[in-house]
């Protein structure tokens, strides 16, 4: 049995994808989903399909670029990678996340 699974907090999926890509470079959709799950030790639960609208949005915004390539098994797949804008965006989101989570932590910590 796996441990407790939680929904990804809203608005953070973008950040998770950006971070994953910045760590691991070019990946296709399944790899991204898989590595997010593995990195979170399967705690963060997401309907895998929800990844795709996110990816599309980030393509439009120019944070990602997608290039078609072949997988190890010679299957056609779209490989996503970060653009310069994407890196900046990741930095912004991380900073914001830090700020917010520290604030939350301060509220929750007993003084």
């Amino acid at each position, binding site marked *: 049995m796996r441990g407790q699974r939680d929904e990804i907090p809203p608005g953070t999926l973008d950040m998770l994808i950006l971070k994953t890509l910045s760590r691991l470079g070019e990946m296709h959709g399944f790899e991204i989903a*898989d590595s997010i799950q593995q990195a979170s030790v399967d705690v963060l639960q997401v309907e895998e399909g929800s990844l795709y609208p996110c990816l599309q949005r980030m393509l*439009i915004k120019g944070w990602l670029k997608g290039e078609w390539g072949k997988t190890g098994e010679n299957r056609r797949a*779209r490989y996503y990678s970060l653009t310069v804008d994407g890196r900046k965006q990741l930095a912004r989101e991380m900073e914001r996340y830090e700020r917010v989570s520290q604030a939350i932590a301060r509220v929750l910590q007993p003084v």
Partner: protein
Amino acid sequence: MGIRAWFLACIRRAAAFFERDEQAAALREEMRLHVELRARRLHRQGLGADEAVYAARRQFGNAAWYQGESSEVWGWAMWERFIQDLRHGARALAKSPGFSAIAVATLALGLGINTAVFSIVNAVMLRALPYQQPERLVSLWEENSRPDDTPTFNTKGSPVGTAGTSQRTTVSVANLADYRNSGAFEGLAAFAVTPMNLTAMETPARVTGESVEWNFFSVLGISPQRGRTFLAEEDSPDADPRVIVTHDFWQRRLGGDAGVLERSIVLDAKPYRIVGVLPAGFQSPAQLGSKDPIEFYVPSAFSKDLLASRGDHEVNVLARLRPGVGVKKAQAALSTVSSNLAAQYRANRDTRAVIAPLRDDLVQNVRESLLALLGASGLIVLITCVNVANLLVVRAVGRRHETSVRMALGAGRLRMMWQLVTESILIAAAGCVAGIALGRMLMAVLVAMAPAGTPRISSVTMDWQVFGLSAAIATLTGLIFGMAPAWQASQVKPVEALKSAGRGSGAKSQVRWRSALTVAEVALSLVLLVGAGLLLRSFTTLMGVDLGFQPDHVIAMNVNLPALRYPTPLARLQFFQQLDERVRALPGVQADAYANRMPLRGGWGSGIALDGNPDLRATPDFQAVSPGYFETLGIPLLRGRSLTAQDGNGQMPVAVVNQEFAREMLHGGDPIGHFMQRAPTAPRITIVGVVNDIRRAGKTDKINPEVYLCAAQTTLYPVSLADLAVRTAGDPRQLVNAISRQVWQIDKDQPVTNVRTMDEIIDLSVSQRRFQTLLLAVFASVAVGLAIVGIYSVLAFSVSQRTSELGIRIALGAAPRSIFGLVLRQAGTLIAAGMAIGLAGALALTRVLQDLLFQVKTTDWQAYAGAIALLSAVALAAAFIPARRGARVNPIVALRDE
């Protein structure tokens, strides 16, 4: 997001839009790969193959939904849906071509007719005249009121400026100075159309011009493009002749010569120096109602005699009101002047000056007719809206089943509405395109058919504002009426609607709606039909009017002898006497005559006193005619003798009068032996004969007293002999060349113009009424056609909705005849209700036709009965097919469907 990023995002979005199919396919492929990879992973972790695929799918979620979400992201959704709806709509419309064709045709008819008619009304009546501050321009004329006359008379039906034939006359030149000094006008100028022979160019031509007072152009507020207008001193009989030409004359006849102001042209054998060229497109008020262009302007140069003669009504007058002076105030000032003149001069005793805004005066002959047309086209638009609404309601109700199926499958209510709206938009768009085409065609036809003399008819252009407005109204109506049932349908619980399997004929309220629309349609059509019927009755009455002479086999032509070559009345008489002899000798000629004017071609009137008694006064029509006149025109001599070749200048002045003259002057007594005088000192003219009454100005004219002078007694009349008429055995047109040759053998430079058979002339004189009648008849037919469509569609639909009910009735023993009757009764109720409302509407609305009708009352029962009979017949015929279909319902089939 910075601007650059936003911009790039837009480009990416647009690029994605154009490859949206590829994009969607790519996304599908990615997702399929994802699920596959996940399944393989799960399989490797120990799940069964099928179970792994199932788990992978579950973990992925609803792929179709995510696909949709992704498309949303790209921003295609709106477009996609719109295009999908358009496609769906087009398919749905194509599936019911009958409905689509009728809806589009209905819209096109309504829009086309309305736009065409309004474009014409706008150009003819509403658009400001092309002069400076045109609202201050008025037209001035004189009215001749005999004290014993009732004040109600109709100025329509006879052309303005034909003295004597109507109460309205042209203005006496001698009175101009008094009117000028009334204080009401900033400027006042006389003008008269003056055709002249233009020679010393490549080919001699008869060209229409206008003689105008020197200040004519400044009253209009027009300055020439080149040169100048006339100087006051040039407007005198002693001054050297000057001419101002139009831009078109300069370009066409003078080749746009830059030195135009140094040139002269020869008019009626006299050289005229060109002093100015008018701006392109300038049209004199007289030209606005005529098809012949006015090409030049010469000074009026009134003679001393004319300036002294108060009784000679020779010119048209236009004036510019002083700023701040209204028409009423100006009229009051003018009336004071008129009464002073009446007290002062005998010739002015019954004369009164009248003004009206120039624009109103120009359109006075066509005003009522255009307003009636406008009203009729308005009714057509109403019927169009009703019909389109009706069709859409029927259609939307018929699709309740489809609507509920789609809603049961998860379609949103708004989406369903939007789908219906899209269809309406498609129909509206197609209707607009067809409407534009039809409107243009119709406009061209109307302009071509419009009676000559309709002001500014040549400047008609498609009125896009009106088109847009009527298109918007029709579309909106369609939308609203189409949406109402859609809205109701979308509120229906899908389960219930599905249970009844679309067999219900819709809610009670919808049935009522459709019935109301049909009733409205019948009512509107009846109004139009009654209007058309009244005009038709009026027209046939008019055609039946006896003119008092026989116009068949008579041809008339104009031989205008220029004053320079034929300076005296005697010279002109000699020309015509020669011509008379030559023409009479032609084979096929039965009789011929010359006169100052033939009937329906204008004329002259003059005041007289009978037997030297100043109390026995009248203003009869006058003409100077040759002895053959009565025979040529077929006017029977009733008493006494006709004019003969022996009546000449040295002999006793004689005249022939008509019966009306005797009735009016002598209470029906025998006029022979009585004498008349045009002035107290003028020669006594003895009456020697009485001829039949004629309507000289045409069929709508009343019978006036007429005096026929002998053309050979040239000292008795001030007008010029100018018209020739020939009665022939065969087709008179075949003799035109032979007659013209006789003219040219006497004088090779003499143009023969205005050649028309008498029948043609009469035909032209009723052309306006024919135009009105024809148009209203066409409009009424369109309305009836639309009503038929409306009635048919409602009944056909209702029968198809009631198939099972009718089947049960038949199964229970109802005879097909009683079913037939049932449906017809339903139709009959609607038709009868529509008729009742329409009748009330017609009684109220046709009152506006009063002025257009000739000797027919607006309550003429025959027109009403005819309209009712016709509409009932066609409406019942429209009901016949659905009724028969209802009667032939096969109960077994109908019940099995249940």
